């Protein structure tokens, strides 16, 4: 709906400004590939070591998130009770790339970052425990609606220090009261730039050369 207070119209007479309540926000981006890493926050890594997994969760191992599981801000996460009884949430930070490349240094990696976006890393812990017997992360995080993303991407020019951020996750449950999780990306967090350079380079991980295309995570 056209914001009635706005006299600015596009060349086809279309509205340019919209009141926030007149639009429906979607996931800010559906990437072509979503490289997901584990152990990004050292405290998460320490928690994981206590979870009784059969295999160790090494920091910064890389796996693919199912992009079809992505949903937008305030869309509902569906709890598939026929599959899991142990749903967990975890606030994470993603990097959106703005150019293709491979075999670059940690210092060069910063020039590939176009923006940052938060997402909720929903995990079915009971499924994860079973999958971990084979040393994999897959279905436990990739079920429909398990990846709420956004509400927005903040461009990199507005975030001079990605290690000094506050993030907030709100959980609205049917029944029990809402839960809020605040988390700082501080000194205890993993550095995404060496990860970008060292963990996702085609040669080391065996991905084909288009694995770092623009618009991917």
């Amino acid at each position, binding site marked *: 709906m056209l914001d009635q207070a706005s*006299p600015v119209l596009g060349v086809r007479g279309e509205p340019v400004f*919209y009141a926030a309540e007149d*639009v429906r*926000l*979607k996931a*800010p981006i559906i990437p072509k590939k979503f490289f997901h890493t584990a152990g990004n926050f050292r405290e998460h890594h320490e928690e994981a070591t206590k979870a009784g997994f059969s295999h160790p969760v090494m920091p910064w191992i890389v796996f693919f998130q199912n992009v079809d599981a992505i949903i937008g801000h305030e869309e509902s996460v569906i709890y598939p009770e026929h599959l899991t009884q142990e749903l967990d949430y975890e606030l994470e930070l993603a990097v959106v790339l703005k*150019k293709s490349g491979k075999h670059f240094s940690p210092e060069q990696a910063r020039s590939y970052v176009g923006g940052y976006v938060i997402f909720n890393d929903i995990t079915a812990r009971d499924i994860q425990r079973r999958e971990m017997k084979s040393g994999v992360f897959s279905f436990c995080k990739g079920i429909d609606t398990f990846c709420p993303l956004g509400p*927005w991407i*903040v*461009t990199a020019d507005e975030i001079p220090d990605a290690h000094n951020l506050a993030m907030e996750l709100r959980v609205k449950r049917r029944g029990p009261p809402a839960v809020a999780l605040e988390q700082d990306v501080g000194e205890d967090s993993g550095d995404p730039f060496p990860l970008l350079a060292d963990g996702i380079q085609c040669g080391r991980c065996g991905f084909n050369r288009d694995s770092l295309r623009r618009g991917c995570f």
Partner: protein
Amino acid sequence: MRLVSFENSVGQGRIGAVAPDGRIVDLNSACVLYLRDVEGAEACARISDAIVPADMRGLFEGGDTSLEAARKGLTTCSIKQARCSE
């Protein structure tokens, strides 16, 4: 910029930026205005569709060229809006 994907009132998928007052600025339309009014481009709509498409992945695929064009569109429309409010 705070970049969003949104669905407008007629169900079109668009991308936008959050203005300081909280409103959403349609970046493709804003870039068309920038190209027409500041750059004097005759094919402003076609150029905007190419460099600031209505799809977020397309915007990032355009790299700095596209992000800068989006920023200029946002600035142009914010200035227009401020002048209209005076």
